[in-house]
């Protein structure tokens, strides 16, 4: 044990410290969010109640409104966590055993390998988004039944609730892939680690679009409405995705994988 503690100290407490970063981010947002609310006296409850009432809640409008606000953001956040893990697990694992090098020796060019990895990441994350969206809808239906409500969100909200998490998840996957391919060492065990497991920094970066979606839903749904929010927040996620893909196309060089696996 003393040897492990010595090693952790030698690694400048990185493994010890990085585990707290997501926690610090969440706590900071919990502290900051009420300050951002324009209804400081109600801490956002008025907005939630308004949304609940708007979509047909009667039994407990605040709870129903909160669920409607938070559910897409929570799906987006968890979708991006899944995206980061999925990309890290495939790129990190493949680079770790030298498989990316052998793939580069197969009749594929770097772009088609990056495209294949992106396709894999998108399929996995879209599948995860579909399952989480179904579970989220089930949770809303259950809540509605328990409160004897009949929630009927409009098309704008439904489009936002479905599309924003999906776009955020894709942005998370593209961002994770960009970082993994340009800096493969980050996804190796012991590098950029979260509690000793490789890829913590990549996972953290991949979470940012999801975290942003959660914040956007919490802060901006009430003042902007679903359509304008989807336009703005969705636009940002699309920009992140396009930027990441451009970065992969311009920056991915085989030697970055080789030097980290040799």
């Amino acid at each position, binding site marked *: 044990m003393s040897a492990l503690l010595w090693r952790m100290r030698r690694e400048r407490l990185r493994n010890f410290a990085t585990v707290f970063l997501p926690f610090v981010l969440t706590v900071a947002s919990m502290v900051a969010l009420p300050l951002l609310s324009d209804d400081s006296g109600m801490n956002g409850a008025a907005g939630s109640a308004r949304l609940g009432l708007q979509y047909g809640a009667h039994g407990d409008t605040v709870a129903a409104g909160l669920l409607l606000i938070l559910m897409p953001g929570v799906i987006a956040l968890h979708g991006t966590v899944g995206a980061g893990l999925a990309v890290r697990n495939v790129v990190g*694992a493949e680079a770790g*055993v*030298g*498989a990316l*090098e*052998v*793939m*580069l*020796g*197969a*009749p*594929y*060019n770097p772009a088609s390998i990056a495209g294949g990895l992106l396709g894999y990441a998108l399929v996995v994350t879209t599948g995860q988004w579909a399952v989480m969206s179904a579970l989220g809808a089930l949770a809303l239906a259950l809540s509605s039944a328990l409160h004897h409500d009949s929630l009927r969100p409009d098309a704008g909200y439904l489009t936002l609730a479905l599309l924003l998490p999906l776009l955020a998840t894709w942005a998370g996957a593209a961002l994770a892939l960009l970082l993994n391919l340009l800096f493969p060492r980050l996804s190796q065990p012991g590098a950029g680690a979260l509690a000793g497991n490789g890829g913590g920094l990549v996972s953290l970066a991949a979470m940012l679009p999801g975290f942003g979606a959660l914040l956007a839903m919490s802060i901006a749904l009430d003042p902007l409405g679903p359509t304008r929010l989807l336009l703005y927040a969705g636009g940002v996620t699309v920009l992140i995705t396009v930027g990441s893909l451009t970065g992969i196309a311009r920056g991915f060089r*085989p*030697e970055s994988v*080789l*030097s980290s*696996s*040799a």
Partner: protein
Amino acid sequence: MTAQLVAHRQCYVEPVAKLEVLNVSAGYRDRLVLRDVNLEYGAGIHVLLGPNGAGKTTAFRVLAGILAPFEGTVLVDGADPNTQTEVKSLIALATHRSALAPRLSVVDNLRYWARILGLPSGPSEERIAEVLDLLGLTDLADRRIGSLSRGQNQRAGLAKAFLGQSPILLLDEPMSGLDPSTTEQLAGHLRTLADQGHTVVVSTHALADAYRFADDVTVLQEGRIVGRGEPAALRTALLGSAYRLCIRGSGDVPAVLDRLGHRYEEQRGAVVVEVPDEGAAERLVADLVREGIGVREVVPARNPLEDVYQQLQREGASRDAA
């Protein structure tokens, strides 16, 4: 070219895929590893020899079209693999790491790579069974890679390289971690492939293996080719035809050698003598027998490639110093 190699070339059953490296300098970003390398490989077993850091792995990456050279050209059957990626299908690469997923079984890993290589599913199952058998992995087919020993893992990695029956095989340190009998089997299989017209390029640190099965040896040092040729010819060119023989026998061997006018060294119960050529070695043994020595063993004092290797390293060091 040896008579053996000529004989091999006469029984090719497949067209030969040729590898050419023309004035290649290559490396990573601003680090130059290979310097002005020229190579031409056809059918046969070609060994790349060199100390750690000499550039063997980089040479494999350049040959496989993974790493584009800074300068010069690599041609696989006349096509540049960096721009015409389809010619990479002629090449199978086994790196010093197995490139297999530790949580998948051996057979599932091979199925995975068969898919990546685009092999049709029906024939690939037959081919997987063949390579498992070839490398003695049939009993381990359902074991997870992560639970295998280093040697077993190495064999599984080689099985992956043999899957596609590519005409060019690039095997980086394939013998490392293998037991002697598997090494022997692998060497036999590589010889069979070479006889069938495959171009087999192998890097190894094992000088004994290189001397035994290489058709030609390329010695790399600090990214430069410092010697190339058949092992025996390379040795003769660098060191002349003199041999150092290690002789063990009953009777007073040193006294007899004194009488015959040979200089010798005594080493751990044996006597080491230098003779100018193979004919002199035969005459020496005949003389010893005539003098009543019961000759039990006459072997080279050490692997002839070891002398070559050391001589090339000395030459490289003095060239650098100059």
